[in-house]
């Protein structure tokens, strides 16, 4: 069995190193495609063989940790779970917009997400500590599953990169933030009420800033139902606003 000639890929990568003088520019790298090649494999090959200074972020390389969000032909996605096979022989990679660029394809989502978490207080608010020796409080199985549905967000930043409002308003919490509020609203262990949620997202940096273009919904690598989470939250917050 003779192996078919591999495709020759030309990958245009937006290079930049904040602090250095050079303005961001595309640089082309050419490699041979291998079977089952992902962008994780391709980028590592470029770094190993063509340019050891190339910056990008991968951790789990399995689509689970959310480190490798980038613009792939202009569209936000996870590089590790993108097969080169699904792209043309020539394509572009660029860092996610909105987030501070660390260098090349690496951006600082961590600081952005932490600030969002602090602002929206994305944790369970309970007035008493749990008794760790006692049988746990019950929860309806379907409710636990519904909470997990929203809890699956991996904070990759793709929804922010795809969001018209986030590009214009630096304080907009984006789909990632709104989805978190939706998640904690569902959770009976969190004692906050809708009035508390309203104080956090009942404004133009929150749920009313969303222009319902829903780029977020289309690009979410985890397939979260951001459209319905946001719509549901918006109705709840509108009702709260009328009180």
């Amino acid at each position: 069995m003779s192996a078919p000639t591999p495709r020759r890929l030309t990958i245009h990568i937006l290079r930049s190193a904040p602090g250095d003088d050079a303005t961001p520019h595309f640089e082309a790298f050419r490699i041979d495609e291998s079977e089952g090649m992902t962008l994780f494999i391709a980028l590592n090959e470029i770094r190993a063989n063509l340019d050891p200074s190339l910056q990008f972020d991968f951790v789990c390389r399995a689509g689970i940790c959310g480190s490798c969000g980038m613009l792939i032909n202009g569209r936000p996605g996870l590089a590790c779970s993108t097969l080169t096979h699904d792209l043309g022989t020539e394509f572009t990679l660029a860092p996610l917009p909105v987030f501070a660029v660390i260098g090349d394809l690496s951006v600082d989502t961590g600081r952005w997400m932490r600030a969002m978490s602090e602002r929206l207080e994305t944790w369970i608010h309970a007035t008493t500590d749990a008794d760790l020796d006692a049988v746990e409080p019950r929860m309806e199985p379907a409710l636990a599953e519904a909470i997990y549905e929203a809890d699956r967000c991996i904070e990759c930043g793709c929804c922010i990169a795809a969001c018209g409002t986030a590009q214009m308003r630096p304080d907009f919490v984006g789909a990632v933030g709104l989805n978190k509020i939706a998640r904690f609203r569902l959770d009976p262990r969190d004692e906050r009420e809708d009035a508390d949620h309203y104080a956090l997202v009942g404004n133009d940096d929150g749920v009313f800033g969303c222009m319902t273009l829903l780029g977020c919904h289309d690009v979410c690598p985890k397939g979260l139902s951001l459209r319905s989470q946001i719509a549901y939250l918006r109705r709840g917050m509108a009702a709260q606003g009328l009180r």
Partner: protein
Amino acid sequence: MRIFYTDVLVVGGGLAGLRAAVGARRRGHDVTILSLVPPKRSHSAAAQGGMQASLANTTKGAGDNEDVHFEDTVRGSDWGCDQVVARMFAHTAPKAVRELAAWGVPWNRVTAGTREVVMDGKHVTLEEPALAHGLITARDFGGTKKWRTCYVSDGTGHAMLYAVSDRAIAEGIPVHERKEAIALIHDGGRCHGAIVRDLVSGDLTAYLARATCIATGGFGRLYRSTTNAVINEGMGAAIALETGAATLANMEAVQFHPTAIFPAGILVTEGCRGDGGVLRDAAGHRFMPDYEPEKKELASRDVVSRRMEQHLRAGHGATSPFGQHLWLDITLLGTAHIDGKLREVKEICRNFLGIDPARDWIAVRPAQHYSMGGIRTDATGAARGLVGLYACGEAACWDLHGFNRLGGNSVAETVVAGMIVGEHIADLCESSDGDLTFSTALAAEFLSREEARLGALLHGGGAESPVALMTRMQTLMTDNVGIFRRGDLLQDAVTELRALSVRARNLHVGTQRRGANPELVTAYRLQRMLKLSLCVTEGALARTESRGAHFREDYPRRDDATWLQRTLATWPDPEQATPTLAYEPLDVMSMELPPGWRGYGARDAIEHPDTERRAREVAALREARPAADRHALQAALLPFLHLLPPRLRGPNARAGGDA
């Protein structure tokens, strides 16, 4: 000179580090966490299958308790673990699950009534009692007598990590992201913090602390074929080793997971088999019952991985362009189950294999997965050799897992150890040993030493490629220090690793940038990873027996008479070429569960002279107190409660009462 002061420095923002940090913070101490990446990206996020804790809520968990969990863990470890630690762990695990529930983890819950499950390849109907409705449910995992693994679909680690990470934010604990501890500051007797490199700017800072806790995870990236994240390079263990004072233990105890997808090495959870999936060969034959009639696919991981490789060697592998593999078949679980409980598996199969696991079999082959060894600590998490240094999670050898860890016991260990060690760290800070006594001269000395090391790499004018040497090391470890080990191959590996270490003193780093510089990072980590590889390989070569995941073809029997010992590795002189090995005996006479057959795998262990005497003693103790409750009996056999922080000592309630 940049100096940063904090009471407690936690190196690592995975589950273990975060939970330890919360504990110390809640006791009023100032805590700072360092992480290579945003903490929610830590590898803990990748844990899929679940967390063991003996809640006994389900029908198949009925009768479970700390005793059963303890015994499963000891058998799983092939009697290599510290039984006191296993006791502390089994006792605290239910509290950890319940705490996580209170912090928001959406554990899957029991639904009362009947349901269809797959067991041993057959559809079976189970009935869950009304009493248990809405309590935390559990699935089956390898090497356990009961269904004990609590889960959140197959995103358990993700849900846990997000809850604990958000809890750390709630407690106001700062995480210094994209920072790497590259050396510990110490005076030979006490640890005073770490030298930390900013991975963006390249700046070095001395972090000075009363207590330093290493929670940096495992070192899977010593191997080419691994389920581990790319950041799991063992730097925490390596910088502890480089102190010359701290000790690593059981580094040769490396776990290989049966079901990494082939060839990418990405894991699909043991939950696939726990929920009823089976392994098949090229002919479609389910082969595990031929080798392991008792536990079949659900024997412990070391046993299943070995049987798979044995079956491949016997010529039953399926062929692909990348080599031989076997199949994992979960088609019998049905679409609804896979869509609900194995959705990460489904995504992974789609993204990386282009298949639908509800219809197609999954190509799998064992790959490196877990490091049982690590920084040797005592039961409180204090590192041997340096006061003020602690370790927890996969980076530590607390010694819960001995020579093989059970699935679901690792994420459980991270939070349980975090709960315990965080309190002991706070105790230290509140004692006179916790006083701030360090000198800035010491910090300056370590800073300039590390500056010099990095400078030498950047400007040393060497010729060797860091990437090429790293790749060679990883290939060598996978080929020679894998599932089946043999004296001559291990000796070859030692020889070559030493040669690689010599070459690694002469590296060429082309990128001269001081800040973000992946090439420089590879270069300095490579030198340390070679030291860890030597610890693993020398330990494996010296251990002339087979125990748990350490299997020697030339010494296939477990040898309790000679090898009921923990390997200790130190590196006292930076110039020495290989680690110094020493051994710490495990005391059979104080074991609650004396060595025996595991219930799966080989039965031909060479007995320790004390085993029979201790077994008789234990039996006599049980007989003499027929009326005693299980807790009193247990306390007589192996006291452990005094080692736990007071708030964790209470008995665990179970919905069905105490079994």
